[in-house]
């Protein structure tokens, strides 16, 4: 059994991490006008038959957006859910483009950091329905 299933979630630690970057991340999240114009700049979105779940804004709203909404009070299941979003659905190539100027990669990277702090990250022997690469 990997340590991903053992360690309890430290909600306080997540909250502290979220608060440390609050000024930046909350402004990025709240001034996103949900226009979806970032979609075409993501090669994964284009490669997956324009599936909205690969859209950069969708990935950020569903991961970091929800973390801020829940104020860090999340369970392991939630973190494992967003693990797929921030590692499998995004390769952090940094090519996403926001017309307003929101830096999406920094938000994904930050969410990865939060997941990693709770020992949630892709494992080498992970069984996945599709390739992580």
């Amino acid at each position: 059994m990997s340590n991903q299933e053992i360690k309890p979630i430290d909600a306080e630690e997540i909250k502290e991490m979220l608060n440390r970057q609050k000024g930046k991340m909350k402004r990025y999240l709240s001034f996103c006008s949900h226009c979806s114009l970032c979609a075409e700049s993501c090669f994964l979105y284009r490669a997956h038959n324009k599936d909205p779940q690969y859209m950069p804004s969708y990935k950020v709203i569903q991961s970091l957006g929800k973390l801020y909404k829940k104020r860090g009070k999340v369970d392991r299941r939630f973190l494992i859910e967003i693990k797929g979003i921030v590692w499998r659905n995004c390769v952090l190539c940094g090519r996403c483009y926001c017309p307003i100027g929101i830096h999406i990669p920094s938000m994904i990277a930050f969410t990865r950091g939060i997941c990693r702090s709770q020992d949630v990250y892709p494992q080498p022997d992970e069984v996945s329905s599709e390739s992580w690469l």
Partner: protein
Amino acid sequence: MGDLIDGQLVSIAFIIFVLGLLYQGSQFFKLTRKKEWILPPLPGMEKRVSKTVVQYIIAGLASLKGTLWKTDPLMMIVTSVFHVCLILVPIFLLGHNILLDQSWGLSLWSLHESFTDGLTIAVLICVAFFMMRRLFLARVRAITSFYDYFVLLIAAGPFLTGFLAYHQWFDYHIVMILHILAGELMLITIPFTKLGHMLFFFLYRFLIGSEYSFTRGSRTW
């Protein structure tokens, strides 16, 4: 009641609008700092080659190829028209300038009334387009919540009620009060909701190191 809405409340809305924007702007510069390193100039930026006007236009149009004007031209046209009209109409509207002249004794020049009426219709058509996008485009629907419709309504409110008031449809007095309230609501919400992209669209340019940046993106969070 009417005096309160078109008197004190207008002043309060303007004060919240200006102070809110100043607060957000000062917070931005407080939270960001100058980078220790400055990005090297982009290739081709060092030497300026003199071009004719036609060459400038051709180069400008060619550079659009790599932008959203190529990937989503309809949305770009609609959003450009929308944002330009959104700023122009309230500032250069004859009725607003007359009110300004009556209360402060100063006014800007005004656009012809039938022209601003046309621009108002253009804004409302653009809002309808955004609404349709939210309803029928899967990728926009995926990130749309009730809040997005509400914000769209806040932006459309002053124009819809202004249009009704200008044409004197329904009870003029009630429509006018609704128009003033809608305008005040929009001013108050701009600094604190996603309408704040009015300010942050420009502030974020200080962070971006590319051809769309201010001061070559010399600031960082």
